[in-house]
């Protein structure tokens, strides 16, 4: 349905997208994953014929984006990062306008608008001014706009950004409901979002394609080794902190299945570590036992998910020896909001 070959966008000073190639089959939901500034939006803008590529080509629904942009535009529904709505218009009036410029036959339009409003759950605000709607509603009006002409391909740029958790859940359900009828590409910088919605994932960083894989494959690859955050304190405070630290570190390293132990911080004689397991090993029970048996207090033991930055690191440095990763890892773990995965209720962090 979508075929991208060597797509490149070069600006005067930098290369935003650098020779990206991938394919998307009909009816798939594909996640376009990458940190901010990776070139996701630029790629999407090229696919939607908003801007031409500097180099390379792409085919959407069988039409080339450069040779027949009109045919491509007819078959694409696009939701940019901020929904392209006119705040002074009423919802129904806006959908009427969009329907006309998208070339929906006039006779079908009222019926189609009703269908779409049902689907996106915006029928109750049909006569409200868009500018007075909440962000969640506005996002859904934007989504309604994108699916109004029943396009083959849907391109959604960060469809859940700026929404509250409840609205995020609603939007995800809505998008999942659209799969099958439409081929969907959605961009995000949140990993659980991809896991929650997509079948395949395309990862890009700094304009380059890092990996393209099925979500199941990718997560198993990433969940193969477990990251555990451990906080240990001595039973009687006041003992020598340095000695305690080395004792705990040695003990943790001796636990079966542990591949490495990183010390993160010391606070009031409590020590915090991040422990990584070998591939496919469950180490939390053994870790707990080792700490308790040594007579220390186990304050916390928690599985931490991999953040996007760590995934990039893993994917881009897979060929490197292990210690090369270890040297870079601590800084990344500290800056990454790894707890984000558990709040959204997905399975990144919790592997139990």
């Amino acid at each position, binding site marked *: 349905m979508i075929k991208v070959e060597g797509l490149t966008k070069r600006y005067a000073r930098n290369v935003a997208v650098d020779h990206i190639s991938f394919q998307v089959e009909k009816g798939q939901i594909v996640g376009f994953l990458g940190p901010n500034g990776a070139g996701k939006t630029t790629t999407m*803008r090229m696919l*939607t*014929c*908003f*801007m*031409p590529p500097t180099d390379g080509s792409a085919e959407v629904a069988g039409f080339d984006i450069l040779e027949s942009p*009109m045919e491509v*535009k*007819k078959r*694409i529904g*696009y939701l*940019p*990062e*901020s929904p*392209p*709505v*006119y*705040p*002074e*218009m009423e919802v129904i*009036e806006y959908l009427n*306008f*969009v329907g*006309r*410029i*998208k*070339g929906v036959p006039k006779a079908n339009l009222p019926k189609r608008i009703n269908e779409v409003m049902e689907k996106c759950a915006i029928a109750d605000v049909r006569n409200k001014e868009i500018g007075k709607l909440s962000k969640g509603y506005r996002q859904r009006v934007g989504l309604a*706009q994108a699916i109004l002409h029943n396009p083959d391909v849907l391109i959604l740029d960060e469809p859940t950004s700026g929404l509250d958790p409840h609205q995020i859940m609603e939007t995800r359900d809505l998008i999942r409901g659209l799969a099958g009828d439409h081929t969907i590409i959605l961009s995000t910088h949140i990993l659980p979002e991809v896991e929650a919605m997509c079948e395949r994932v395309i990862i890009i960083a700094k304009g380059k394609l890092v990996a393209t894989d099925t979500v199941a494959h990718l997560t198993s690859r990433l969940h193969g080794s477990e990251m555990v955050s451990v906080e240990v304190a001595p039973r009687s405070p006041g003992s020598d902190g340095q000695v305690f630290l080395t004792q705990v570190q040695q003990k943790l390293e001796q636990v079966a299945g542990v591949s490495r132990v990183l010390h993160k911080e010391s606070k009031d004689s409590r020590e915090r570590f991040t422990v990584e397991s070998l591939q496919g090993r469950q180490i939390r029970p053994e870790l707990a036992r080792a700490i308790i048996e040594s007579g220390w207090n186990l304050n916390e033991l928690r599985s931490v998910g991999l953040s996007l930055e760590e995934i990039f690191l893993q994917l881009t440095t897979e060929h490197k020896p292990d210690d090369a990763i270890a040297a870079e890892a601590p800084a990344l773990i500290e800056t990454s909001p790894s707890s984000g995965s558990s709040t959204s209720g997905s399975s990144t962090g919790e592997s139990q």
Partner: protein
Amino acid sequence: MNVFTICRKELSSYFRSPIAYGVMFFFALITGYFFYIATYSFVAQGMRAAMMGQSQPMDVNEWVVRSLLSNVGVIGLFMTPMITMRLFAEEKRTGTIELLVTSPLHDWEIILGKWVAAVILYAAMLSISLINLVSLYLYGKPSWKPMLIGYLGLLLQGGCMLALGSFASACTRNQIVACVAGFGINLLLWVVGWVSSLDSTVITRTVGYLSIVDHVDSFSKGVLDSKDAFFFISMIFLGLFLTGRAMESIRWRA
């Protein structure tokens, strides 16, 4: 068809924002004031002429209509940038331009639709000043043909300024910048006419030819001059062409 859809959308947003009403209100006020002055001086001059025993009647068209129309043209210089400033700048700022550009529309359909909407608003504005002139029929019989031609001239001049204003709006995402730039272009095309009074070398004549005010003179006199009409029509094309180029630039600048 698409042009009509875009045009209707623009008109409805004009009349939902205070812009249309504000522009029309001040236009009505100012033209009313100019009309009052023109009529007053016409009556005063007429009285004086009658007292001095001149038997030749004075021409209402010459005294009132022509003076009002040429003033209205100058007011247009100030008003048109306010009409065009939001056309493209606002869409670029809010990101709705992405909707238009990724819809199966040609650029020229978007541009033409927006320009036609602006022309319709300007025509509505001009028709307010017509009320003043209609009141002349209560007291006399001014001939209507020169008036019609005069208004045609104003509409052509307005269309030209609106096309150039669209260009200014397509260059920026800031409405204030679009307004100031549009006003600057208009003002420049007004004052260049002054050089023709200096001498009549090829250069001054060429530069003076670009004046959008001088070309209305023939229309205000009630003369339909194809040379002047051609000037305005080609300026409209130029303005819309430049708007198209500016719109294309978002594709490589972005």
